[in-house]
């Protein structure tokens, strides 16, 4: 009772995240000072900006009159290549991701398998698409093959990691019930685990299809084929009308994919 009597009348405050008041202040002030110094360290060349504004404006106004015609066959070829790269790399990437995801889920894989699979995922995630693309272009030469391999490789890190996390979050008892019937390991995965993670797998796959298409536009800049190659050429020739046309097509395709994925995801839940 006396403990209560002592506390009555004293104000209550949420305990601070960092207990030491001195340390708290030093960290806060230090960060603010660093932030402004960092901002100041970036030099701005105002005369260059003035010149550049003109060029930037040309780029922007090009969107008012995009030119789909004069490079129509290049654009068509680039788009076909991009779609091929996107579809093949997504399918192959998913096919490789699924077994790796199973191995990277701690609740179903033994430790050695888990470590190997997590390592593969870490490597795939650590290397940015552009860097991988440059490597593959160096090995396989210019063209969509390098792009296809890059995107397949990148898909593994993305899909296997997120799928493995969903597997780790699954309801353990549902899977246990299937195991208790005397099911084999494959049957257990098929009946006990797969139904639980299927909506997530489908959602992630469509999302990755979307990402791979957008990436295919960037990979062309380093020579890995697709619409990005066409885009790069147009930039080099200062054909901003064609650039605008290509970008508009990419935007429309991405929006269409977004819309379709929304419908599919709503249906599989």
């Amino acid at each position: 009772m006396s403990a209560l009597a002592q506390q009555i009348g004293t104000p209550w405050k949420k305990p601070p995240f960092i207990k030491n008041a001195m340390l708290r202040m030093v960290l806060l002030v230090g960060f603010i000072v660093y932030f402004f110094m960092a901002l100041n360290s970036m030099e701005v060349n105002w005369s260059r900006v003035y010149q550049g504004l003109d060029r930037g404006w040309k780029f922007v106004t090009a969107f008012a009159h995009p030119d789909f015609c004069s490079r129509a066959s290049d654009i068509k070829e680039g788009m076909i290549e991009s779609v091929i790269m996107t579809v093949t790399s997504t399918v192959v990437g998913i096919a490789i991701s699924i077994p790796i995801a199973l191995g990277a889920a701690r609740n179903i894989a033994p430790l050695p398998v888990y470590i190997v699979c997590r390592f593969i995922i870490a490597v795939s995630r650590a290397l940015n698409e552009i860097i991988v693309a440059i490597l593959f272009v160096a090995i396989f030469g210019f063209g969509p093959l390098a792009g296809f391999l890059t995107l397949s490789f990148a898909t593994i890190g993305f899909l296997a990691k997120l799928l493995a996390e969903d597997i780790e979050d699954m309801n353990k008892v549902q899977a246990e019930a299937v195991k208790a019937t005397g099911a084999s390991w494959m049957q257990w995965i098929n009946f006990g685990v797969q139904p639980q993670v299927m909506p997530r797998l489908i959602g992630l796959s469509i999302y990755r299809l979307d990402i791979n298409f957008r990436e295919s536009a960037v990979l062309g800049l380093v020579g890995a084929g697709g619409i990005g190659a066409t885009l790069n050429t147009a930039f080099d020739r200062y054909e901003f009308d064609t650039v605008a046309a290509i970008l508009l097509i990419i935007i429309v395709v991405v929006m269409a994919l977004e819309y379709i994925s929304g419908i599919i995801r709503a249906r599989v839940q």
Partner: protein
Amino acid sequence: MLKLEKLTMVYKTGDKALNAVDLEIPGGQVIALIGPSGAGKSTLIRCINRLVNPTSGTVTLDGVELTKLGSAGLRRERRRMGMIFQEYALVERLTVMENVLSGRLGYVGFWRSFLRKFPQADVDEAYRLLDRVGLLHMADKRADELSGGQRQRVGICRALIQDPAVLLVDEPTASLDPKTSREIMRLIIEMCRERGLAAIINIHDVSLAKMFVQRVVALNLGTVIFDGGPNDLTPDVLTQIYGEEDWEATIETVDDDAEVDA
């Protein structure tokens, strides 16, 4: 005949869940396993079909020592042990029929099960069981569309289609209302009687246990501290199992229920 000898289970954390449990259940006998939360009831039945591997001791089912089996042998013997779970443990995104037929997984090959092409005899038996529990019209519904009582009926069908020799039942009524609880218990007991199955039913509702079984085993801190008929559960015994409390109400309720039920 299910026989547990010196069954001991120590978790990695050092918790001793079971302490040299000896238990013998003749074929066709249904027992209720009672005891406070954490007494080791769930661990005990999970050690029998080895969803949890016991630290030491043996479990023998009709002469086969389950605790010695390798993975193939274990899968074969698991078919003879149907399990019914707390909170049903149906795979929610599968249909009722897929859930029931998953009880046959130990008997069919991977591709057949993957393509959902189960033998006609299994399909017919699934229909028969669903009809028996009054859910035939729900066969193609998804499991998560069912109510709690309906889900547990599907869980019972899944266990029975295995054609088991023994049922391991873990708190079958834990999340059901009192009326549904009794219906589910009655169904389990009837099914055991019809098919001559032995069963271990973990249950924390003492009055419900007394209503339906002829033998009660009590576990506390991983040790069997009572083994007898439902009428031997006197206030003294209950105090010994659960701790000090006024038990008269629990015992009286049982008598009333028994009359209503009869």
